[in-house]
Every structure is written in structure tokens, then in C-alpha cells.
């Protein structure tokens, strides 16, 4: 609403229909119709760019793990490497370390598509077998947290905007600020103190899953990690929703709807919310990205067997195939989420979706 009210002559000049007294609609523009549909156009461009990004990421990941001092075989064998050169050679051959760098990269890269991801250097397990349960656990944690957090954030933000400058708004603002200032592990520990150790003993303090079982087998174990992460992401979504809703509620079209006698609930749900959606979707997308990779500390506090912890373990153990796979997978998710949020944001904005 920064635009001055007095100025009313929109003017890039070309192609504006003066709309003469005859009042016929402006004729269809065949040229615009032949152009690619904006959504398809965006999808195509983003998908191509995303694939390119992923290729670059794969090269970087491969190079980074390659330049680590010593090679993987040395790392695995440790002291025995020096005492038994024969064993070292055998392992090097098994890991294709005796081939050229390009060859190694190609073997690994093509493996990503054929499912030959190699084996963990630590325990010889296939990488997929090692990563899959963790991936699934993390995905469950992320999905549950994301859905609850987004719903709560949007609801709180919208309410705060409607009660702007009231006590509810002020409490929300202060709480959100306080929570954002706290590191997530502090939130986690706080919740543990409240619900599982000092104050009450309602919930388990750690979320250790027995091997072979998944997060949904023990929903109680999910409660505290989900609660922690919801507390962490809600303030961002809430604040963005509040700002976007306030902008929409202060707009001319909402004032017009009021002056038309539209009921309040319709004004909020039909007139304001759709116009506030685009920026909120972007923030929700960003929070999903955070949930995908950045939750190591929370997983650590609760000993939750997720992908973040898996990655940390792998780095500690120099388990290169596992590191490579997880990093590429996370990169792919980032690219994917970015495309998804952009497409949704475009879909909810008719002005951008439909050409003049």
C-alpha cells in the first residue's frame, strides 16, 4: 500500500485497450494464446535448471569427498592398511579406487540412476539399506511437523492480523520473537524438562526406535520431536502470514468488499486469504527445506534415527558412499521443493498465471 492514491494513470503504453463506449471486451490476443502456458513454461525452465544444478552438485560432492586426505580404503583399514598392502589393494579394487577419477565419477553417477549405490564402508551394508529407514523416519517427522506447523502458523498469523494491535497480536509477536531467539536444542531440552523428566513424566525423553521399526509404529515417540520442530517453524510462518494478511486486509479490494456488505468470514477467507497465499507458500516451502536437512540437533537430542543424524554419523566415520548419497538426495529435495513452491505461488496468483 505504498503507492500514492492520487496517481491513477497506469502507463506502460503498449497494448492497453481504451475500452471505448461500445463496451465490447478486448479481442483475444492470438499471439499470447500461442505462447507457452505460464505454469508449463515455469515448470519446463525450472526442471531444466534443477537438473543442471543437481549435476553440478554431484560433481562438487564427488570432488569434495575425493580431496579428503588419504583414500577411502586407507580410512577403512586404518592401521592395517600399512601392515597389509595386499588387503589395501584388494579393497582399493573393490571400491574402484584404482581407476581414473572420471571413471570413478561416472561409475558413481550412473549408479545413482541404476540403484547401484555401493556399500557402506563402515559395516558393508548396502547404502540404500542403511539410508532408507532413516529417510522414511525423517520424511514422517517432516511431513507431520510441516502440516501441523503450517496450519498453526497460518491460523495464528491470520488471527493476529485480524486482531491487529490487540492483546492477542502482542502476545503472538512477543512469543514468536522469544522462540526465534532460542536455538532449537534449547527448545527441545525445555520440552523434555517439562514433559518427560523434571516436571512431568508424560512422554518418553528419547525417541529411540527399535531397529526395523518405523516412526509410525510408535507415535508417542514422535510427539516431542514434532512439538519441538513445530515450535521452531511456527513463528516464521505466523509472522509472514500476519504481514501478508495485513496487507490484504488494508487493500482497496477488501475495503470494497466491506462496502459491498460481504460478511466478515467471507472477506477473510475469500477476499484476503487467497491474496496472502503466495508469500506464505514461499515461507512454508523454506521451512520444509529446513526440516529436511537442518534438524540434526533435534534428532540428536531425542536420539531419533533420522537422515540428519545418519549424515553426521557418516561424516564422523568417513563413510563416503553414504555421505555422497545423502547429500545428493537432500540437494534433489531442495530443488524439488523450490519448484513446487514456485508453481503453487504462480497458481494462486491469477495476475501472473493468466496473460492479459
Amino acid at each position, binding site marked *: 500500500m505504498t*503507492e*500514492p*492514491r*492520487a*496517481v*491513477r*494513470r*497506469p*502507463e*506502460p*503504453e*503498449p*497494448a*492497453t*485497450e*481504451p*475500452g*471505448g*463506449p*461500445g*463496451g*465490447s*471486451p*478486448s479481442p483475444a490476443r492470438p*499471439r499470447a494464446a500461442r505462447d507457452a502456458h505460464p505454469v508449463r513454461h515455469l515448470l519446463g525452465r525450472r526442471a531444466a535448471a534443477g537438473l543442471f544444478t543437481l549435476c553440478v552438485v554431484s560433481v562438487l560432492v564427488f570432488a569434495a569427498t575425493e580431496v579428503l586426505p588419504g583414500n577411502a580404503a586407507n580410512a577403512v583399514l586404518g592401521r592395517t592398511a600399512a601392515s597389509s598392502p595386499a588387503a589395501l589393494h584388494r579393497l582399493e579394487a573393490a571400491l574402484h579406487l584404482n581407476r581414473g577419477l572420471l571413471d570413478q565419477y561416472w561409475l558413481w553417477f550412473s549408479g545413482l540412476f541404476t540403484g547401484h549405490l555401493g556399500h557402506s564402508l563402515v559395516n558393508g551394508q548396502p547404502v540404500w539399506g542403511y539410508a532408507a529407514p532413516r529417510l522414511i523416519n525423517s520424511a514422517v517427522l517432516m511431513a507431520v511437523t510441516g502440516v501441523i506447523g503450517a496450519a498453526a502458523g497460518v491460523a495464528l498469523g491470520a488471527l493476529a492480523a485480524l486482531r491487529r494491535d490487540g492483546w492477542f497480536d502482542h502476545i503472538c509477536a512477543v512469543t514468536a520473537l522469544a522462540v526465534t531467539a532460542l536455538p532449537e536444542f534449547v527448545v527441545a531440552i525445555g520440552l523434555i524438562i517439562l514433559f518427560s523428566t523434571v516436571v512431568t513424566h508424560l512422554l518418553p525423553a528419547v525417541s529411540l526406535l527399535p531397529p526395523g521399526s518405523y516412526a509410525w509404529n510408535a507415535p508417542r515417540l514422535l510427539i516431542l520431536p514434532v512439538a519441538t520442530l513445530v515450535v521452531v517453524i511456527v513463528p516464521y510462518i505466523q509472522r509472514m502470514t500476519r504481514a501478508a494478511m495485513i496487507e490484504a486486509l*488494508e*487493500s*482497496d*479490494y477488501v*475495503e*470494497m*468488499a*466491506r*462496502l*459491498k*456488505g*460481504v*460478511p466478515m468470514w*467471507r472477506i477473510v477467507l*475469500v*477476499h484476503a486469504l*487467497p*491474496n496472502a497465499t503466495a508469500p506464505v507458500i514461499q515461507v512454508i516451502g523454506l521451512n520444509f527445506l529446513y526440516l529436511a536437512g537442518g534438524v540434526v540437533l533435534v534428532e540428536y537430542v531425542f536420539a531419533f534415527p533420522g537422515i540428519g543424524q545418519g549424515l553426521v554419523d557418516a561424516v564422523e566415520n568417513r563413510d563416503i558412499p553414504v555421505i555422497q548419497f545423502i547429500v545428493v538426495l537432500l540437494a534433489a529435495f531442495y530443488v524439488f521443493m523450490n519448484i513446487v513452491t514456485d508453481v503453487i505461488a504462480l497458481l*494462486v*496468483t*491469477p*495476475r501472473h498465471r*493468466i496473460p*492479459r
Partner: protein
Amino acid sequence: MSAAKGSIPGAPEAQGQQRRGPADRHGFRLEVRDLEIRNRRDGPAVVSGISFAVRPGDVLGLVGESGSGKTTVALALLGHTRRGLSVSAGEIRLDGMDLLRLRPAALRQVRGARVSYVPQDPSAALNPALRIGYQLREALRSHARITGDPETRVREVLGEVRLDASPGMLRRYPHQLSGGQQQRVALAMAFSCRPSLIVLDEPTTGLDVSTQRHILDTVRRLCRRYGVAAVYVSHDLAVVSELAAEVAVMYAGRVVEAGPAALLFGRPLHPYTQGLLASVPVPEGGRRLTGIPGQQPPPGHRGPGCAFVPRCALALDECRARAPEPVPLAGRTVLCLRAAETGTARAEPRPAAAVTDPPAGAAVLSVRGVSASYGPVRVLSGIDLEVPPQACVALVGESGSGKTTLARCIVGLHRDWTGEMTFQGARLARGARHRPVPVLQQIQCVFQNPYTSLNPRKTVGQIVAEPLRRFLHVPRGEQSERAVSVLGDVALGPRYLSRYPDQLSGGERQRVAIARALVAEPSLLVCDEVTSALDVSVQAVVVELLRAAAARRHLAMLFITHNLALVRSVAQFAVVLRQGEIVEAGPAEQVLADPGSDYTAQLMADVPRLRS
């Protein structure tokens, strides 16, 4: 004011009037009495002592400069106040029912159904995320009392505003419509529930004259046919005089003069009304526009006396000390201590033609065969144009005619053009980046929108000094002296040097923009719609300043405008542009008085004129 002009055959005018009974015991549809609105319940009054009444089928014009409180009053007629404001006294009776005493639920039922609103800027007031069919139907659906099928009613009202009611049209989003179409959708929405009162807030600002003419005709016709009372808010007295039977002039939150339009426009008594009338440009005659210098005091700074004193030539000490009370005089109500004497001061003849003939000589700027495009879209074709030395050429056209594009080509902001332009005999390069510094300095430009053309982070002093540093290499010590002198040329004092643009009014900003152009000592000034964002009274001041500065500095000027009425007040030559082609060109007098093309004639016919 013939209602027959736009009536639809087969719909007798009287039918609608009979639908609704007599308004209230005095025959008024709307009566406003002593309305007062304050900033926060106990803050300064934004408007006070507002009283007026409107009969069925009549239009009341509510006029005044921006900031006079006219929109605040207009919104109050729907029981609505903007954030921070609240009604502290008075009553608003619609068909005898006081809107201000209604509970929220009842008020919601009244809004849209019995009193409706047409916004200033339909492009912002129509929801960008909803199809217009939905928005039209919603107005009907929110009010259960509408009988019959909403679809039928939507088609009916769209027909009344001459819009096509096909499913394809209804499925459009607002951004797929032109400005005129958007405003017609808003009009259709306002009339769809057959209200008793319709409030129009500057509905034609920013529309082309022909579109404006059509909107005005539609409003007049529908009000007559359905016995609707209308309040038409505008700063443009010419528009109001074409539509309104009664007029209320607002200044600094008060109605300073109110009465029948013919009386007010024929023999205004309040000095402010006189000033407003003197600033209205007349398309036929090049009279000097006087305008009203200064600006109105904001709420809380209005002092004990009359708020108009600082801008009033007739003010006495008594005016400063004592606030005037409304007095009935010569068929109207006036709020002025000297009202009885002002009528005589008005007899003075209008000054003669403002524009003098320029000396002959080789053209400063000549444009030959210029065609320009945006990508594949051609916006200008084969433009030939000459600006003689010390002359002003008005470039007239509707929005979309390509006039801004031509300005951008001339100043070097748009590079996608072919043809030839010469400036003082030398060829002009396409882009500003390829032009030598002296050429950049010699061609200066003032843009349309003073709210965005000044850097908000720089003071007026820095803004005006920049060309001095860049073009003229004036030493730092001398810069502020030169800046002060050029600010003086646009009637701004030295105290403006340290102000930031957001501390200035629209008119002041535009004057700073003009000062920035003048300080470079150009020989050609390109003015692109420089007054379209300004009030009529401020427009008059700015146009006069420009004209005087150009004469003093022997400047040549290209004055781009959509407002034909302004042309004779500034320019010796006129060029009419339509869809990227020149329709006709010649001496301004001849082009406007005796147009050679039907298009110009139609434009001239559509210009709203002051009727007194």
C-alpha cells in the same frame, strides 16, 4: 443534462422511480446533519459540521482538493471510517433511517444493498484473485432481499453499463480488463442491488475523456431511471458541473460553500470556490490559469480562525481570530465572514490569452519518420514532429496512443526505434548512454508521477544539486545558492532544501522535479503528463510555473497530456496522436477550435466543460 441520451429503448424512465416510495418527509433520499469525524475518538476533527441533502434522482457534487476530507465524508455515507477515524457527532439519514445508529449486522445488510460505492481506482478495488463474474454475483448474494435469479440480474446490469455479459467476459480476472471496463464493472456492481444512494469517489480519475464521458452518461442515466440519489466526489469542477444539481465545496474538513450548481459555478461567493473555478482550464480559450497557491492545513493544525486565511487574498485580522459560521446568502450557504463582499470582487474580466507567439527559427527538435516498438508490438509509426525554438508543442492522445513512448525515445530512455531525430541540427543517438553529455544536459525531462520520480533518500537540496554537479561542474560552495534560486523559480522557499520528498505534497514534489530539470539549463523540456496526478488547483499552479519558467529561460517545450483542456493554456502548437500515428498537427488554436479530423472533434466534444 438529458437523460434520454443514453436510455435503453423499451425501459420507461418512470418505472424505476415508482418502485421506491417517497424518500423521507422532506423528500430527501439522503440527509447528512452536522457530521463530525475525529482522528481517534478524542483527537483533532478531520471533518466537522458537514450537512447536506440529496433528492431521489439527483446528484450532489462533493468537491475540494485532496486532503479536504471529501473521501472521509463519502465513506461515512456507507457507515465506514478508515483506520483510526471515528464518527463523533452528527447523523446520516438514508430514507429516514440513521446509518450511524445501526448495529454492525444491520449495517452490513444496508451496505451494497441500499447504499453502494464506486471506488476511485477500480484496478485496486476489484479483487485480483477473483473472477469478475464472481465479484458481481457476490454483491447480489450477500443481500438476500434481491428477488429473482442473480444470473439474470448480472446480465441486466452489465447491459446497463454497456458491457458484454458473455460467459467469457464473466470468467475474466480484473487484470484482463481495460481501466474503463473495470470501472464499468464497478458501476454495474454498485447498481446491481438497486440502491437508494450511490457514492462515487472520483470514479473517472485516470480515465480517457471518451471513457469518462461514457461513465458520466451512464451514472446520470441510471440515477434518473431508478430514482437513485448520488454523491459524486471529485476535485474536477468541470466534471461535477456536468453531472450535479447541487454542489458542496469542502476545504480543510468543512463545507465552505454549498448550494445549487448553477449558482455556485455562476457566481461563487467563497474565495476558495472562486479560486477552484479560476484553475479549471477551458478547452476553447487559452486563458491564464491562476490556481490557488499554498496548501490546506492538516487536521490538528487548523488554528482558531478560518482555515483558508493563509491562501486567501481577502483575509482580515478578524478572519484569523474567529471561525466563520455558515450563513445563508444568495440561495446557498457560505462559510466566510466576508461572503457579502466577495461577490463583487469576482466581476473582473478573465485575463487575455496566456500563450504568446514564439519567434521564428530553425527547429530545436525535429523528429522524422520515427517508429518505435516494444518487442514485437509496434507502438509508434512514422511520427513527424518539430519543436520550434521557444515554443511549446502539446502532444495529445489517449492512454495507449504512444505519447509516453515518444517522450522516452526523445530523452533516450527507449532505444527500440527507427527513423531520425535531430536536436539543434545534430543527429540524436538512440540511447541516452550514447549521447554526449551536453546533449543530455540540453534535453531535460519531467515525469508523470512525482511520487516515484524523486529519490526518497535524498533531500530536495541534493536532488536539485545533482544536475549541477553532473552537467555544469558547479563548485560545491555555489551549488546550494543555485539550487535556492531555481527553487525560487518554482515558488519553493529555501527551507525546502533540507526536506525529503515524503514530507512534500504532490504539487510540491512535481515542482521539485521541474526545478531539477530547469537547474540543468536545458533548451528543451519534455513534460510527460506532469499534472495528471495533481489536483486541478495545483495543476493550474504547476502549469503557470512551467509556462513562466519556459518564457523566462527561452525554453522549447514538448508538453504531453491527455487533457485537451490544458493545451490552449500552455502550447502554441498541438499534435494529436492516436494508436501510434499522428492524426493531425498544427497551431493549437486551429487544431482545437476547428479540428480537421473526426477523432479530434470527438475528443473535444468529450472534454468535460464548466457549465455555469
